[in-house]
């Protein structure tokens, strides 16, 4: 079954200065085990979209189904939120407790999980994000990447079916970003956790199975990373980047080197170059 099934989703923000259309008919399906990256400029609507995944926002038009459950049905609200875990941008503003393990326990506590099982889940989740050595630490003394891993553990402890990272790497330094990325990649590849990554870092999007490009509240491009990043002119017009290796290979092709399309990483580029001779 599809974990996420979004059809013709609309969202309008109403402020004092009139209406802003944030989403104008988005269709998106995420299946079990997928790793989907959603990229777009700041203000493109990608974060608004993410907030529809777990009913923080409700559709102004169209519908969002989470494992078949309609997010507009109030009675299903907590089931939806248990199934879709969300890691937010600001590492500090999503950690509730003063001790790491207590924070990880926060979700299961809210769900009414029995104490013995909470303890098991906290242990397991901290191990999954490699933070078991920090279980009694105070969160404010951790690095940004560590805080986000604690946040991920807090989500895992709720046993969700989908993890959404809503620009969760935007405020981190390169080391923090790679910590979070390798954590989520491992969860996806080794444990089959379905994940959606909202980002504007192209080198992160490259690692997904599928990349969805959002602009002005609409999906403008969708496909494998190789397919999407071969459209570098379109992406640049949208104010987005292309991974450096992809761009370099396009430049080289333009200079007459018979390189294939769909190169994404430095290693791929070098392999292809060596194959030319």
């Amino acid at each position: 079954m599809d974990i996420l099934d979004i059809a013709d989703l609309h969202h309008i923000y109403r402020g004092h200065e009139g209406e802003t259309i944030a989403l104008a008919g988005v269709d998106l399906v995420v299946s079990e085990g997928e790793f989907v990256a959603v990229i777009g400029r700041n203000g493109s609507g990608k974060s608004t979209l993410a907030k529809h995944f777990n009913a923080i926002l409700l559709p102004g038009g169209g519908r969002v189904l989470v494992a078949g459950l309609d997010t507009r049905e109030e009675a299903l609200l907590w089931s939806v939120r248990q199934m879709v875990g969300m890691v937010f941008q600001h590492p500090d503003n999503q950690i509730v407790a003063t001790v790491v393990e207590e924070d990880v326990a926060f979700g299961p506590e809210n769900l009414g999980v029995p104490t013995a099982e909470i303890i098991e889940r906290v242990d397991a989740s901290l191990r999954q994000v490699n933070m078991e050595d920090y279980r009694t630490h105070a969160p404010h003394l951790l690095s940004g990447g560590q805080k986000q891993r604690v946040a991920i553990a807090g989500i895992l402890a709720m046993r969700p079916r989908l993890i959404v990272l809503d620009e969760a790497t935007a405020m981190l330094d390169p080391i923090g970003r790679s910590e979070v990325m390798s954590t989520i990649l491992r969860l996806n590849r080794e444990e089959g956790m379905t994940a959606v990554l909202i980002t504007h870092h192209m080198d992160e999007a490259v690692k997904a199975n599928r990349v969805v490009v959002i602009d002005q509240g609409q999906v403008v491009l969708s496909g494998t990373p190789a397919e999407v990043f071969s459209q570098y002119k379109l992406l640049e017009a949208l104010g987005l980047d292309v991974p450096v290796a992809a761009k370099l290979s396009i430049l080289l092709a333009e200079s007459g080197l018979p390189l294939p399309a769909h190169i994404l990483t430095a290693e791929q580029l070098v392999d292809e170059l060596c194959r030319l001779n």
Partner: protein
Amino acid sequence: MPIKLEQVDFVYAGGSPFERAALKGINLSFLDGEFVGIIGQTGSGKSTLVQMLNGLLKPTRGTVTVNGLVTTAKGVKLKSLRQEVGLVFQFAEYQLFAETVAADVAFGPENQGVPASEIAERVDQALLNVGLPLEIKERSPFELSGGQMRRVAIAGVLAMNPKVLILDEPTAGLDPRGRDEILSRIRELHRQRGITVILVSHSMEDVARLVDRLVVIHGGQIVYDATPREVFAHGSSLKTYGLGVPQATEVLGLLKAKGWAVPEVALTLDEARQAIVRAYQLRRELA
């Protein structure tokens, strides 16, 4: 406005059980009109270092001399020093406080005691310098987008007409276009007004294409102080410091390892492209 650091040590929370040396024996100088990049891991001491340059922090040992003034000397006017050396903090939009953009940008020059007529001029100039339209002057800074707020904050420092501009991670959290807009403005400021720019960055790509000189700091010590080309030739040791090289350089490094006749370092994509095309043609001729 030359700045010179001699044998600078800095210790946080000295004498307490939390004592931690943030800088150790730093010798460094910045000359007029330079464009210098500083790179280092989080916690390497680079934020401490830049706060030394305008007297926000004073060295535990050693001296910092700004334009002939020693920051630790008695009776030194730190306030005037801070006007000459403008410092833009990371996530600078969080310092905005005034009701309008214009009032916020005017805060610095007002503290300097600049006459009102000149302040208006400086505000306009600063906003134009960061590429913001003057129409937003009367708007609340809190209604703007993140990238615009960041630029208002930078304008607030520029309006003080500093001779040295220090930017700590000015593009953190911005999307690619927001990042490019800010960086190209900074480059223009450096070229047109000739001010010294010190750019603290996590992005090897950014420093590679912008700065003339690159300082690498690790564990509170300076490990490299040279041109980006020279620094990025030390890819493997940069990795041990938790840093890296620009991807263009990485590609060349991998090719070189496979026997291609390419230089070690390329700072821009275009440079890498030319080097690879040349090496490719050479290989075809040989083959």
